[in-house]
């Protein structure tokens, strides 16, 4: 085991636009190499979270080691590192890529190159990976492999004529892909005798072993007993176990040496100590400098999370603690809302990350949550010279104390068929986008570049984009920086009481429009009471929009048939239950859904 020939190792990943078949191909490769029989295969082995499988996305990087008997008669060790596919997890993607030497680019034979395809390819090329394409879904009637090959060559500039034509779903062409891995992915370099230098590309928490660190050994070796140091966080520990990845299980081994991908455990209690991108070295024989590219991941999107049932606050705290063990990019701190009681302000990488955490809390921890509208981090420069980073709109200082405010802006790339350029440009304009350029990829497709304020895209931009392009637009972005902006806090008053959890920061020019839509939405969400309820939107104490929930005048259940009172009782119970799920503000009961309705204001 100790001496594995580096030339027989291939470390690679699969990159693709969402839905182009990345996980399915991974499954086929695993199946083909006989790691699992197809009977044991559960579709998409690598997506092992229930949620991942359901949504068809990969959230955490997954890795598997497989043995491939190549046509040249040699046995190769493949380390397949499945990367998350969403822009929210860009940094994780980049670290996973850094653990590889090559990448398979999966392109859908019908759809061709999409925005994420480009973003991921560039990311891979940035990491000096050798990228080779495969054309997937060739069995679709709409497949145009020749066109797609040309597109790959024209747009990305990599050789594509001999790209394997495959159908991952139906197991066509998989052998060809495996051979290409042998020949096109370079063998790892790096001396096993140099001081230890290993890249952390992921970690998970195990209640028995502590943090399990996923790493790629770039140089040197590590085994049980090695004292290690994480160079960025400074944490030190003694290795308890090293090993590699079977399908869905950890298989211990003697040693990991340069070129290998595996895991190590060292009774580390906190995932924070093992930041993705950090370099592991030997405490006694450290390497000269860490691997490049480490950065601290910052939350981009914040929202308040509250238990629907106030008594579940401790449960929510415990659940967040547990999730945090596995997800270093989740941040939270306690906060209190007048309307929602005790909860947490949580920070996420992006909206998808937020949704995933929310869903996991609800499913895995059985919590019923109320989330407030997501917010980005605003920089508030005060007249006294202080700057605060604002994550909760209710904490905005009095306008008289504010000199000016800045908001985060992203560089966005939108790939769209030319017929939808008009509507998409209009959308970007509405969202305060700054037009940068249009590049024509081919006659029918273009790449639009825009700079957009982050707060305009965290709500429902993606949905709007899809609906205005009939699903044809794809989208990618990265944070560009902060810019000064004219921002105001929009407050919502229900029956003349301000509801803090409904406040949000908005650009002054869209305050009126947003306020109006909010009021309309809330009017539909808030059930009738015995009295009339005004709903108002206000900026700086000035009412800018108003709706009214009329008083309930009739609520009678007519017939009760043949003495079957169960229906009637159910109806009353539902009514009562519904009431329990509401939040009392003043003497108005607000359903939880109202707090989330602010998320979907685009009605085009």
């Amino acid at each position, binding site marked *: 085991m100790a001496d594995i020939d580096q030339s027989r190792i291939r470390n690679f990943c699969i990159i693709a636009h969402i839905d182009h078949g990345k996980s399915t191909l991974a499954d086929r490769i695993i199946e083909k190499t006989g790691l699992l029989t197809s009977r044991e295969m559960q579709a998409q082995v690598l997506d092992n979270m229930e949620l991942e499988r359901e949504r068809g996305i990969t959230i955490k990087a997954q890795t598997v080691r497989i043995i491939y008997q190549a046509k040249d008669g040699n046995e190769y060790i493949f380390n397949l590192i499945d990367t998350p596919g969403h822009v929210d997890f860009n940094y994780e993607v980049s670290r996973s890529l850094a653990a590889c030497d090559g990448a398979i680019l999966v392109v859908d034979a019908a759809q061709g190159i999409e925005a994420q395809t480009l973003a991921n390819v560039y990311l891979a090329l940035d990491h000096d990976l050798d990228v080779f394409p495969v054309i997937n879904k060739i069995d679709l009637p709409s497949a145009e492999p020749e066109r797609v090959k040309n597109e790959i060559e024209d747009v990305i500039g990599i050789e594509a004529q001999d790209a394997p034509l495959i159908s991952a779903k139906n197991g066509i062409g998989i052998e060809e892909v495996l051979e290409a891995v042998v020949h096109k992915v370079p063998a790892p370099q790096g001396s096993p005798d140099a001081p230890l230098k290993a890249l952390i590309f992921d970690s998970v928490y195990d209640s028995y072993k502590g943090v399990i660190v996923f790493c790629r050994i770039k140089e040197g070796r590590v085994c049980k007993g090695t004292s290690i140091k994480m160079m960025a966080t400074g944490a030190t520990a003694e290795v308890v176990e090293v090993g590699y990845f079977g399908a869905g299980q950890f298989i211990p081994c003697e040693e990991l040496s340069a070129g290998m991908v595996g895991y190590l455990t060292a009774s580390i209690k906190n995932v924070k100590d093992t930041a993705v991108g950090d370099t592991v070295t030997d405490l006694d024989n450290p390497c000269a400098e860490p691997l490049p590219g480490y950065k601290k991941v910052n939350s981009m999107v914040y929202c308040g999370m509250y238990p629907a049932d106030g008594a579940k606050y401790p449960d929510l705290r415990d659940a967040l603690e547990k999730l945090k063990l596995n997800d270093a990019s989740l941040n939270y701190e306690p906060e209190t809302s007048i309307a929602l009681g005790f909860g947490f302000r949580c920070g996420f990488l992006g909206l998808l990350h937020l949704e995933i955490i929310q869903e996991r809390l609800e499913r895995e921890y059985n919590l019923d949550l109320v989330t407030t509208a997501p917010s980005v981090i605003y920089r508030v420069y005060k007249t006294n010279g202080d700057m605060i980073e604002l994550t909760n709109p209710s904490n905005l200082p009095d306008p008289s104390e504010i000199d000016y405010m800045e908001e985060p802006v992203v560089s966005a790339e939108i790939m769209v068929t030319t017929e939808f350029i008009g509507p998409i440009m209009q959308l970007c304009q509405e969202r305060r986008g700054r037009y940068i350029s249009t590049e024509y990829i081919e006659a029918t497709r273009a790449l639009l570049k825009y700079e957009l304020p982050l707060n305009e895209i965290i709500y429902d931009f993606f949905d709007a984009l899809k609906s205005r392009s009939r699903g044809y637009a794809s989208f990618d972005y990265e944070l560009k920086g902060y810019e000064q902006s004219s921002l105001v806090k929009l407050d919502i008053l229900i029956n003349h009481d301000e509801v803090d959890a409904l406040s949000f920061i908005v650009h002054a020019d869209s305050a009126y429009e947003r306020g109006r839509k909010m009021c309309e939405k809330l009017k539909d969400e808030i059930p009738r009471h*015995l009295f009339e309820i005004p709903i108002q939107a206000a900026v700086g104490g000035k009412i800018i929009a108003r709706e009214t929930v009329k008083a*309930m*005048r*009739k*609520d*009678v*259940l*007519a*017939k*009760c*048939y*043949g*003495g*079957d*009172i*169960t229906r*009637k*009782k159910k*109806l*009353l*119970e539902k*009514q*009562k239950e519904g*009431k*329990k799920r509401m939040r009392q503000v003043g003497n108005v009961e607000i359903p939880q859904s109202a707090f989330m309705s602010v998320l979907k204001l685009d009605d085009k």
Partner: protein
Amino acid sequence: MRDLSIYIHIPFCVRKCLYCDFLSYAASAAEMKSYVNLLLRQIKAESVFYRDHRVVSVFLGGGTPSLLPAEEVGGILRAVRENYRMADEVETTIECNPGTAAAEKLKDYITYGINRLSIGLQSTKNEELARIGRIHNYETFLNTYQAAREAGFTNINIDLMAALPGQSIASYRESLERVTALLPEHISAYSLILEEGTPLYDRREQYHFPTEEEDRNMYQMTKEYLGEKGYQRYEISNYAREGFACRHNQVYWQRGDYVGFGLGAASMVRDVRWSMPESMGAYQDYVEGMPVRVDNLSYRHFPGAYVLTIQEQMEEFMFLGLRMMCGVDCRTFDDKFGQEMEAVYGPVIAQMMSQGLIQKEGGRIKLTDRGIDVSNYVMAEFLFE
């Protein structure tokens, strides 16, 4: 000796109405025949359970019970009489849809001891009837009504519906006028509730339904107009001339003992509730699985028999009782539960009174006019957490 009311479910219809989500369907003569046989068997077999009861009312509901051949109805009622102790005066009702009961059949009903007829008219406007899929028109109804009077029925209920698709305030008023002009003893008036899963629900986009405002106006008009015409509202959707309130109906609200025979029929006896299976196969299995000759039956015998907790009994006492215009009697509550209503529901009652939704009067608590309008809201308050 306790009073018992009997409900007998006949789940057959010529055709299902578009708004209906009750247990009913079209069936062949043979299917009806075998169903009646099951009913007879259940009625006989379960009678041992009610040896300490006497029957005060019988209600044949559906579906369309009048769809059965007259002699089958006679057979069912004979089985009841032969196996149960009957009170001196038994209110015996059959539901009937216009066009399914000819003069001859109605006369037969009288000879079987049926003394109350409930006719499902719903509207006097033929286009409104057609829209909700009723099989009859107003003229057929008039014939049935006249025939019933001629046959000797002196206690007739007419069902009316408001908030029908395409109905206007004026057309609803006309239905009220036409119906009251016939001088029935009892009128049941309720609003259409669009139930999910019914054909009418699926095609709701095609029709104009009365707005909430119109619905409410119809509802207001109902109580005012019927009041003027001498019909007293004794329950949320039931109106009767003096002395004609339906005894059977009130048993449900006052939580008297009642037993249901037939498919899906609900029972409550001594604070235990159960229901017959809702599928014909399961119902058949139930009946055929019953011992033919038994000396005793226990609740365990009944499917899903559930002993209501004291709290559930209190809830029911309140939310069912409040449907009656006379409300609930505080003393009855205190005696039944050994706790004062005030001690259990004091805060809720105070809150509802302060909102003007209920009132206290002569040791009773009842809904105010405003409380009736929003009765669901009020009743839900009487449920425990």
